[in-house]
């Protein structure tokens, strides 16, 4: 089908090759962006191009504060879901009361960072790609440069910084809400008091588990920001191009988050 139309196996190889080259190029670009983004933070003042704190706040508001309702709802749901599933599974062994351990560990180490990362990728990673893509096709990026404003300093560093702060904060919030959600179900289903539940939770998790989750979420934050910017910056071809870049940013960011998460689990369970 598609393969033969493009000239058989050679065509396929050609396309794979091109995709690989593009991919490597994008990873390199992302690394450069990260370096440049951090550089402006450090040398911005000396070069008379400081990163504006008010822009960071604006982004933090957009990325973090406005995401609180949806993070709350989903974290609560995940907590309840884990409790239902845990109790159901453990009932076969008559070990329902051990469910707290499962909830506590899976929420803090896996589910809170993951669900928060995915939500932020969908809400803010896409918005970042769309904003930068639109600014590119309307020549606003060129305008920044000729005004003498480094676009990375003006657009990327604030977003990166805001993500880096807000995603872990949201993740911590998701930790709390998901644990509460699980606790509510457990207390209703097993008749355990919430106080007893949280005692058990605190026994089950170490600070390490929470930090593990938060650390991961910080990495997700960087991935979301960089992927959003790289896709936005590569927009060509008008409004349709912006749409494509936005979709691509979300798909890539979620994939990157899930794959990074798997690598983490693999490495840390060795």
């Amino acid at each position, binding site marked *: 089908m598609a393969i033969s139309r493009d000239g058989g196996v050679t065509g396929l190889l050609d396309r794979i090759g091109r995709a690989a080259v593009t991919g490597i190029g994008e990873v390199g670009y992302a690394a450069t962006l990260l370096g440049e983004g951090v550089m402006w933070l450090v040398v911005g003042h000396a*070069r*008379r*191009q400081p990163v504006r704190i008010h822009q960071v706040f604006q982004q933090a508001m957009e990325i973090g504060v406005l995401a609180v309702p949806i993070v709350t709802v989903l974290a609560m749901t995940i907590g309840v879901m884990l409790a239902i599933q845990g109790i159901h599974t453990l009932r076969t062994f008559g070990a329902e009361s051990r469910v707290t351990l499962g909830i506590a560990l899976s929420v803090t180490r896996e589910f809170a960072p993951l669900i928060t990362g995915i939500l932020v990728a969908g809400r803010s990673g896409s918005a970042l790609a769309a904003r930068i893509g*639109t*600014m590119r096709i*309307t*020549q*606003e990026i*060129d*305008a920044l*440069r*000729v*005004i*003498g*404003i*480094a676009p990375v300093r003006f657009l990327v560093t604030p977003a990166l910084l805001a993500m880096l702060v807000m995603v872990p904060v949201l993740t911590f919030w998701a930790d709390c809400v998901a644990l509460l959600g699980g606790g509510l179900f457990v207390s209703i289903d097993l008749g355990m008091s919430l106080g007893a539940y949280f005692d058990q939770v605190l026994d089950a998790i170490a600070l390490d588990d929470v930090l593990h989750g938060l650390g991961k979420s910080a990495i997700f934050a960087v991935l979301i920001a960089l992927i959003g910017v790289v896709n936005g910056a590569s927009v060509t071809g008008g409004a349709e191009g912006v749409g494509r870049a936005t979709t691509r940013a979300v798909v890539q960011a979620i994939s990157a988050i899930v794959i990074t998460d798997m690598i983490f689990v693999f490495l840390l369970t060795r």
Partner: protein
Amino acid sequence: MSQATSQILPDADETAAGAGGPVIEVSHLNTHYGDRHVLKDLNLGIQPGEIMVIMGGSGSGKSTLLNHLLGLLHPTSGTVRILGRDISKLSQVELTKLRCKMGVAFQGGALFSSMTVGENIMLPLREHTKLDEQTMRIMARMKMEVVNLAGFEDLMPAELSGGMVKRAAFARAIIMDPKILFCDEPSAGLDPVVASAIDQLILNLRDAFGMTIVVVTHELESAFTIADRICVLDQGEIRIVGTPEEVRASEDARVQDLLNRRPEGQEQDPDAYLQRLTGGIH
């Protein structure tokens, strides 16, 4: 550059770099997009206080040339000197400094959609000066007065009409009192009345501030109204540089085609035409 220089001579320091020499000097500029040779050995000098119109059909390389003048693109070979400095050899800090002396009104305005018109116009001041809020506001209002847009500072760019967006873009471009003003297709997409008002604005800017102005356009009427000199670009080559009269009198066939709105002479070479149609299959 006849009327321009006689009316207002630029300050001594404006031309310090080249003491009376050109403000912009392009020499042996070549550019490629991939394998395509887009600008072919361009040489062009732009004098202080003149309005230079770069004219050509679409795809002739006008925007590419403009991007080189702004230092947004780097040439494969050749140099662009702005106020005596080779723009592709400057450090970040030097480039920023030089750019404070250049203003650009982009084709679509390129106003930042998340800021009000007033904030847009003040942005260069906010970034490059330590003026207080009140002073910046007053300066922005003065420039808005110049472009006939007073009272609109609190609107968002999306709330402006096409002509007003262009005016706001001009106000932002001149807020730092640049020595050189670049305008990309200033009258494209505007109705004739608004377009001629923009032409008038460009003439006023030169006369009132003595700016050197580079205008990129494909609109003949506008070009001949405002130009001190015209540079005709065709398929990446400069056909002629001269006063409007000299351009009109040119005997170059491509220039005449352009002036008489004749399409490119594709039919002149039937073999090449056939070749293009068949995609090289014989």
